[in-house]
């Protein structure tokens, strides 16, 4: 309350907060509302409205084309719960997250620690090189990766054969047993740069004086890392992991160009399945796709909440012990 009184007037008169009515309080913050206006209007039009429409579509039996779109209540949702491919796609998406998110977060932290050294020559160049895949169009990445993982003479297979790790070329993208792992690898390659930038940013928040203090205390490189840097990075872990996980949940165009969800559903992520149902099938089913989208959104929300709570809890336990 007291803070409110303190900063209420921006050029207006000072009035004690407690005595003002609702209208007066709103009036006092009129500039705040004006500042929010563009976001509220635009966001309402282009984000909230589509979400509300999606909720409505999910109650229709509609192919997205005709004028005929009968209301069928929750039938789409009932069907979704009994749809094995939907569950399969959720499993695939979760597996991708469970594998790539920790790996990407950890590996990019490692690289960020190296790149953060101010005495490292060419750091800027390396940073750019690692970021370039992020800005490359996905459409053409599919073709390049076809060559890189080619079972007939592609470099990855050549290397594995030469090293004697395998004696038969591996059909990375075409074998249901390996395709998902390959897609995960390429996905990590493509988006590694973004996570790296997050970590570099986090590292910049640690003042140089902290290191100097550690050094005068006689801490070597490893000790400084173990007892100074890493503990200070801990709060960033939650936010970076969360950003990475959300972005991974919506893995879509890469899968579409590389495998189109196949072979035999092995790389069918939820977004790809929703797209196939809503737009691509012989008979597109926008209503059903919308219902899958709503369910997926709810799952994501729950998942993110669990993750955030879990990480926070883990942090608390660790710091208290």
């Amino acid at each position, binding site marked *: 309350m007291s803070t409110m009184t303190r*900063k209420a007037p921006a*050029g207006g008169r000072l009035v004690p907060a407690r005595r003002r009515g609702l209208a007066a*309080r*709103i009036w006092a*913050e009129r*500039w705040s509302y004006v*500042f*929010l206006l*563009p*976001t*509220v209007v*635009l*966001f309402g*039009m*282009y*984000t*909230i*409205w*589509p979400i509300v429409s*999606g909720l409505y579509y999910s109650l229709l039996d509609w192919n*997205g084309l005709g004028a005929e779109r009968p209301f069928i209540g929750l039938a789409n949702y009932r069907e979704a719960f009994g749809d094995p491919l939907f569950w399969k796609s959720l499993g695939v998406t979760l597996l991708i997250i469970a594998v790539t998110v920790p790996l990407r977060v950890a590996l990019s932290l490692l690289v960020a620690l190296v*790149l953060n*050294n101010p*005495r*490292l020559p*060419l750091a*800027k*160049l*390396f*940073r750019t*090189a*690692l*970021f*370039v*895949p992020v*800005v490359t*169009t996905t459409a*053409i990445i599919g*073709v390049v*990766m076809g*060559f*890189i993982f080619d079972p007939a003479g592609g470099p990855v297979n050549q290397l594995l054969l030469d090293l004697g790790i395998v004696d038969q070329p591996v059909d990375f993208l075409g074998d249901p047993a390996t395709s998902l792992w390959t897609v995960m690898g390429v996905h990590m390659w493509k988006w590694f740069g973004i996570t790296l*930038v997050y970590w*570099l*940013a*986090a*590292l*910049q*928040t640690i003042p140089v004086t902290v290191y100097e203090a550690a050094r005068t205390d006689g801490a070597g490189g490893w000790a400084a890392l173990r007892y100074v840097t890493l503990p200070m990075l801990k709060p*960033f872990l939650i936010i970076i992991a969360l950003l990475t996980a*959300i972005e991974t949940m*919506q893995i879509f165009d890469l899968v579409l160009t590389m495998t189109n969800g196949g072979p035999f559903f092995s790389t069918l992520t939820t977004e790809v399945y*929703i797209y196939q149902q809503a737009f691509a099938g012989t008979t597109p089913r*926008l209503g059903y*796709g919308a219902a899958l989208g709503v369910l*997926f*959104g709810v799952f*994501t*929300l729950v998942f*993110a909440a669990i993750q955030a709570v879990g990480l926070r809890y883990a942090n608390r336990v660790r710091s208290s012990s």
Partner: protein
Amino acid sequence: MNTALRRRRLGIWAQVAVLAVICVVWIYPLLWIVSASLKDSLGVFSGGLGLLPGSPHFENYARAWQDADFGLYTVNSVIVTLGTVVLVVLRCALAGYVIARREFIGKRVVVGVLVATLFAPGGLTIIPVVELSDLLGLLNSRTGIILALAGGGHVAAVLLYAGYFNRIPRELEEAAIMDGAGFLRTFFRVVLPLAGPVTATVSVMTFLAAWNNFLLPLVFTFSRPDLRTLSVGMLAFRGTNSTDWSGLAAAGTISLVPLLLVFLALQRYFVEGVAGAVKS
């Protein structure tokens, strides 16, 4: 002391060597795209992984630039992207500022709704957006594309700004108010300039997303092919039964260059901006 120093220097160069190898492997696929853009269509597939084309075929670029109208599309892409960046920066900075600094009725609702929508999958939003834009007479115009690209989402940008503004000492604003500056003047003269790094970050991220967006500009330019952007223009290279791979690679390279330039120019601020924002 001397040996320790030497050892450390050796260590650094070892790191550089390892990183250099990693980076070469890392950007190899992209070099391949550039090299494919200089090969003929059979060469793209018969050359395997070699990077050097026998004799460079610059006509792929000529084809992309003239036949596929990439000159015009580049201009459109630049206009649409810049418009989107400006609008996003402005609206997100304004919103971020009041969320960080003001206590007003309804704030919790606003923040709650923003965060909740972070998790909404995006694939299906296109149909309502088109219906709405049609209703408002915004289809077939660059303005419509810009509003739709800038209007939806960008929650992360709002939160970045909010996080950053939270850390600016209140004294600065108070000093400005003492000097007689109003709410607006304080914001535009004092607060926003301080947020340079966040603005750089948001600009780069928005630039990326807007530049590469495909479906929205496609839908908004059905009746006006002269308003199409680069990403939509790439359509021209993919037909029913065939794809002009070398032309597509050339087009991909053309559209990659501005993105790289923007990143190179802003990368220092970019990292600082994320740093400033995640800190809170």
